[in-house]
C-alpha cells in the first residue's frame, strides 16, 4: 500500500515537471501585467483578455499566422503527394536495393540546415526571391520529401502483399493499384504523415529565420519581435506563444500514436 502511494507521488511529480512550464505560460497570458510579475506569484486572479487583444491588434502577427498556415499546408501537401508515389515504388523493391535507397534518404537528414540555407539565401538575393512565399514552400517541400518517403514506406509495408497480387491478377496497371488499392488502404498513415509534416513546418524556426522577408515571416520568426530592446512584453508574448502552440498540440494529440514513429522514421513503431 505504501509502495503504491509512493508510486503515485512520483507520478504526480513527473507530470508536474512536464506540464508546469506549459501551464505557467498559458496562465500568464490571462493575467494583467501587475499579476504576471507579482512575487510571490499569484495563483488565483481575475482573468483578462487584454493580452490577446494586444496580439490581435498586431497586424504583423496576423499576417504571420496566414503565412504559417499557407506555407505549412502547401509544402506538406506537395511533399506527401510526391513522397507517396516514391514510397509506393520503393516499398515494392527487394530488400538490398531498398536499404541502400533508404540510407541515402536518411543521410539527407544529417546535414545541418546551415549547409543548404546559405546557398539558397545567396541565390535568392541574386534573383530577388527573398520575400516570396514560393521560396519558403520549395525549401520546406525539399526538407519534407525525404521524411515523407521514409515514413510512408513503413505504412505501405503494413499493407498485405496479397492485395497487390490480387489486383495484378485482375490485370490492373501499377498506377491504378497505387491509386485504387494502396492509397485508400494507407489513408490513415497518409493523413498522419501530412499532419506530421504540417507540425514540423509550423514549428520550424531556422530556415524561416533566414529565408523569410517582411511579407513572408512565419509565426516563430514573428514572435521574436516581442523581444524588443525596451524589454520583453511578457503578457503579449505568452498570449502569442499560446496561440502558436495550441493548434499543434491539438494536431499532435490527434496522431499521437504516429509521432514517435514519425520522429524515428519508422525504426521504432509507437
Amino acid at each position, binding site marked *: 500500500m505504501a509502495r503504491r502511494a509512493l*508510486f*503515485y507521488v512520483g507520478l504526480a511529480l513527473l507530470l508536474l515537471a512536464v506540464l508546469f512550464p506549459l501551464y*505557467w*505560460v498559458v496562465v500568464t497570458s490571462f493575467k494583467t501585467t501587475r499579476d504576471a510579475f507579482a512575487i510571490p506569484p499569484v495563483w488565483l486572479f481575475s482573468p483578462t483578455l487584454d493580452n490577446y487583444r494586444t496580439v490581435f491588434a498586431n497586424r504583423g502577427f496576423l499576417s504571420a499566422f496566414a503565412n504559417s498556415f499557407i506555407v505549412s499546408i502547401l509544402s506538406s501537401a506537395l511533399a506527401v503527394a510526391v513522397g507517396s508515389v516514391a514510397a509506393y515504388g520503393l516499398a515494392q523493391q527487394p530488400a538490398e536495393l531498398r536499404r541502400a*535507397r533508404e540510407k541515402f534518404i536518411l543521410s539527407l537528414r544529417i546535414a545541418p*540546415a546551415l549547409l543548404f540555407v546559405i546557398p539558397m539565401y*545567396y541565390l535568392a538575393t541574386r534573383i530577388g526571391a527573398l520575400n516570396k512565399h514560393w521560396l519558403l514552400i520549395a525549401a520546406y517541400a525539399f526538407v519534407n520529401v525525404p521524411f515523407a518517403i521514409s515514413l510512408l514506406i513503413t505504412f505501405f509495408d503494413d499493407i498485405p502483399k496479397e492485395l497487390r497480387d490480387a489486383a495484378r491478377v485482375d490485370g490492373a496497371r501499377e498506377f491504378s493499384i497505387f491509386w485504387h488499392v494502396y492509397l485508400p488502404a494507407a489513408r490513415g498513415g497518409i493523413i498522419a504523415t501530412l499532419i506530421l509534416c504540417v507540425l514540423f513546418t509550423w514549428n520550424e524556426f531556422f530556415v524561416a529565420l533566414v529565408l523569410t522577408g517582411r511579407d513572408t515571416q512565419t509565426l516563430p520568426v514573428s514572435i521574436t519581435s516581442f523581444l524588443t530592446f525596451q524589454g520583453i512584453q511578457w503578457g503579449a508574448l*505568452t498570449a502569442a*506563444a499560446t496561440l502558436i502552440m495550441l493548434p499543434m*498540440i491539438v494536431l499532435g494529440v490527434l496522431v499521437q500514436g504516429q509521432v514517435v514513429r514519425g520522429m524515428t522514421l519508422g525504426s521504432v513503431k509507437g
Partner: protein
Amino acid sequence: MRPVAAASDPTRHFFQPIIVCLTVASVALTLFVIWISLHDLSLMRAGREKFVGLDNYIRFLGDPRAMAALWRTVLFTVLATVIEIALGLAVVLFLDRDFAMKRLVRTLLLVPIIMTPVVVGLTWRFLFDPATGMANYLLSLVGIAQVDWLGSPRIALFSVLVADIWQWTPFVILLVMAALESAPTDPLNAARVDGAREWQVTWYVLLPMLRRALAIVALIRAIDSIKAFDLFYIMTRGGPALSTETLNYYGYIVAFTNFDISYALAIAIILTVFTNVALLTMYSVLFPKTGDR
C-alpha cells in the same frame, strides 16, 4: 510471378525520378557549397570573389572562437544525450507497471515534444527570469540565493541544457516505452522463475532487450543536439560573453551578421564531417555485430 527486380519493373518509375531529383539536387548543392568555401565570397562585396584555396579551413583551425564553439558543441551534445537517455530510461522503468490513466500519461508526455521549440525557449526564459521568474522564486522558498540563470557565463549553457532536457526526455520515454511493450515477457518470467532478483532481471534481461531502441534514440538525440539552434537563439543568443555559442550558432553569426558566407560554409562543412564521424563511431559502438538489424 515475374521477378520484381526486373529492369522492366514498372514500380521503378514511381521512385526513380524523385531519387534522381534528390541526388542531382544534393550533388549540385554539395559542389556549389564546396566551390563557395574555396573562395572568399562575401555578401558585402558581391561579384568580386577570388579563389583562396583552403584558406577558410586553415582560418578555422586558428580561430579560437570557432574552437571554443566546437568544444561547447561536444559538451552540450554529450551531456544532453547522456542525461536524456539515463533520465528517460529511469522513468520508463518507473512507469513499467499497470496503473489507471496510463494512456493519459502517455498523451501528456507528448506535449513538450510537439511544442514549438521557439515557444519552449521563451517559456524557459520566462521561468529563468532573474527578478520575476519561477526558478528563483522556488529557490527563495528554500532559502537559496538568487541565480542569474541566463546572465552568468558559467551557468547559461546549463540553463539551456535544462530546457533541452525538458523538451526531449519525454521523447526518449515514449520511444523506449513502445519498445518495452513490444518486447516478449517470457524471458523476464523465466529469469524470475530461475530465482533472479528484480534488479538482476532488469539489468541482465530487460536492458539487453531494449538496447536497439536505446541505441536508435541516442543516435537521434545526438544528431539533433549537435544541430541545436532554436533554444540558443531565443534564450541567450550565444551570450553572455559567447558562453553559449555552439558551432552551428557561430556559423549562423558568420553568415548572417558578418555576411562572410564562404567562411560560414567552411564551418558548416566541418560541422557536417564532424557529425558524420561522430555518428559512425557511435553506430559501430552501438551496433557492433553486423547481424543486429
